[in-house]
């Protein structure tokens, strides 16, 4: 097993009848992900059909997430709902008691995410008190999560991945592909790859994912890709120092980013002197992670630590 997703994952696609939702539902089906239901309010009762090379997939569409979960036994969902309705879609998924909610949508208002985060934390506390597994949110504004050869939830190109033992966690989509591409080129496979997203307020952060990788016997080393803005990398550094026994190679994007400018991602901004790449690199280095000098050296840096 790897972390969070695998062969047993039964996936709902929220927004399956939309442009992005239907395109990526097909891609995920072709990768082998078990897409068991779709949700589009008012389109319940329809069937989403995809003639994949491996056979025709027929996915029932429901009006609500709870109907979809009850009818199909789904345990995860991926959200392709446009920004005005995306926070509501996350809340609906959390209320349906799914274990994993992956939100791809970019552009959710931060005020909406503050409310989502509050509900997520309450839900996690409730489930923890009941002795149950806690629900996880990945994203928003992320590429998703993949366990190579088993399950792909999101928009990453599946073909660059190989099954193996390296965990990859990143705030950036394309830099994740870059790291995975480098690993695969070196003949090194991946246990699970997770894009946690580029928004300032989101679900899982580095520490949450590092903890799962540390406890996963199938993961032997980790590449962690951060960027300017916020303090998530500094918190990760503290966790690495205190808890991690597995090697962590890191890269931080934005050494050359000017302060006060939003660099694409809503969360990638140096404000009031906080969130610089230099501070993050220093914290990670001090914690025992090895920081790659350039983005071309992510996989080779980890490889040098594994020997």
């Amino acid at each position: 097993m790897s972390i969070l997703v695998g062969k047993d994952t039964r996936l709902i696609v929220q927004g399956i009848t939309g442009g992005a939702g239907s395109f990526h539902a097909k891609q995920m089906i072709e990768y082998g992900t078990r897409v068991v239901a779709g949700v589009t309010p008012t389109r319940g009762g329809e069937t989403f059909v995809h003639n994949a090379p491996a056979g025709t997939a027929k996915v029932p569409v429901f009006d609500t997430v709870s109907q979809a979960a009850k009818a199909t036994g789904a345990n995860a969902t991926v959200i392709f709902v446009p920004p005005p309705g995306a926070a509501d879609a996350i809340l609906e998924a959390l209320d349906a008691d799914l274990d994993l909610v992956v939100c791809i949508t970019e552009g959710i208002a931060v005020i909406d995410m503050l409310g989502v985060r509050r509900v997520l934390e309450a839900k996690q506390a409730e489930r923890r008190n009941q002795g149950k597994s806690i629900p996880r949110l990945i994203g928003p504004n992320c590429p998703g999560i993949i366990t190579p050869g088993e399950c792909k939830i999101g928009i990453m190109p599946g073909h660059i991945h190989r099954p193996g033992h390296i965990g990859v966690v990143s705030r950036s989509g394309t830099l994740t592909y870059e790291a995975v591409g480098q690993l695969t080129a070196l003949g090194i496979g991946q246990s699970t790859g997770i894009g946690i997203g580029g928004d300032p307020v989101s679900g899982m952060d580095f520490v949450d994912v590092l903890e799962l990788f540390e406890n996963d016997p199938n993961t032997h080393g980790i590449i962690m890709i951060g960027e300017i803005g916020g303090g998530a990398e500094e918190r990760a550094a503290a966790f690495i120092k205190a808890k991690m026994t597995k090697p962590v190679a890191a890269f931080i994007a934005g050494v050359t980013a000017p302060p006060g400018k939003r660099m694409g991602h809503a969360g990638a901004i140096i404000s009031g002197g906080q969130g610089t790449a230099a501070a993050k690199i220093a914290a990670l280095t001090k914690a025992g992670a090895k920081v790659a000098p350039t983005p071309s050296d992510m996989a080779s840096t980890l490889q040098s630590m594994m020997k």
Partner: protein
Amino acid sequence: MKIHEYQGKQVFAKYGVPVPKGYPAFTVDEAEAAAKKLIAETGNQVVVVKAQIHAGGRGKGGGVKVAKGGAAEARKLAEKILGMQLITHQTGPEGQKVRRLYIEQGLDMVRELYLSALVDRDRRRIAFIASTEGGMEIEEVAAHSPEKILTVHVDPAVGLSAYQARELAFGLSLMQHGKDTVAKFVRLMSSLYEAFVKEDCSLLEINPLAVLRNGDIVALDAKVNFDDNADFRHKIWGDLRDDAEEDPVELEAKSAGLNYVSLDGNVGCLVNGAGLAMATMDIIKHAGESRGVAPANFLDVGGGATQEQVTKAFTMILKSPKVKAIFVNIFGGIMKCDVIALGVVAAAKELGLKVPLVVRLEGTNVELGRKILNDSGLAITAATTMADGAQKIVNAVSGGAR
């Protein structure tokens, strides 16, 4: 998104945050008329003439002046400030041209405080930050006397509680002005929180927040930033936007749906994905710093860009006079390499390619993308990795000699 001080104060007034009386002015005549009107309304000869630019530090830069001699003096000050190139620590050395003024009543204040609200992303809460050191940069206060910074975090489920506002009021020693002042501060905070949430702000900053001789509390300044992601529910933002305050190239990119930031270097970059775009800048600087090679821009064409958007992006880079070479770095995921290649070729054929072009393509439809570039007849240097591409760009710009 940033707005001007006077627009921010209109937002404040809408929610009941006390602000001084004032009128915006776009000409010297309007400024004089505004001063006359204010003096008639308030019976006070003192007015303040304030430059309206989006950058902070206007006072220190000479953009805020007090007129004690009535409307005639206000006019003279307006003549000086309107049209000036105002340089502050936030504008850069070239400064920002003053195109608008705000004429405001003078007030008799006894204390200057600091108050702001922002999203504390590490706590995932809206935070209110207050300090007795009004008029100073809060970063400086945080660095030199962190004990003077007071913070409360708001639970979004219940909103700002009165006790939290009182905590800040007592922390700011407002009792010395009477318990009415404490109550006024609590009301102001409550209004500010409501404004923050309903108007989808990312920052509200009042520096200074003034305590008047009569115990009133008034926002003397207003810095209001909106969360761009929420523009779908605020149609009015289109009217509040002042394009003259934006970098024209960044504005052009934005209207084409591209993420673009101008930088000082000489290598134009076209990349997909924000993280990869930043990393591309970093690796160019890493490879070329000692030889005077650095990125000229951050450009993320995004995941779902069309061929037209790519053409637009490449055109913008080609037109930039500072660009001495171009690095296209693509790791196709949703973005297909052939779409990038078609866009690049279309723009290069239209405008001509006068500088070296290094292209690194990887990922979805990479073979098709490479074929389109090869068949185009353009002088393109292919790179196998980011590092290889960065080295080739540095060689192209600095002549290959160390």
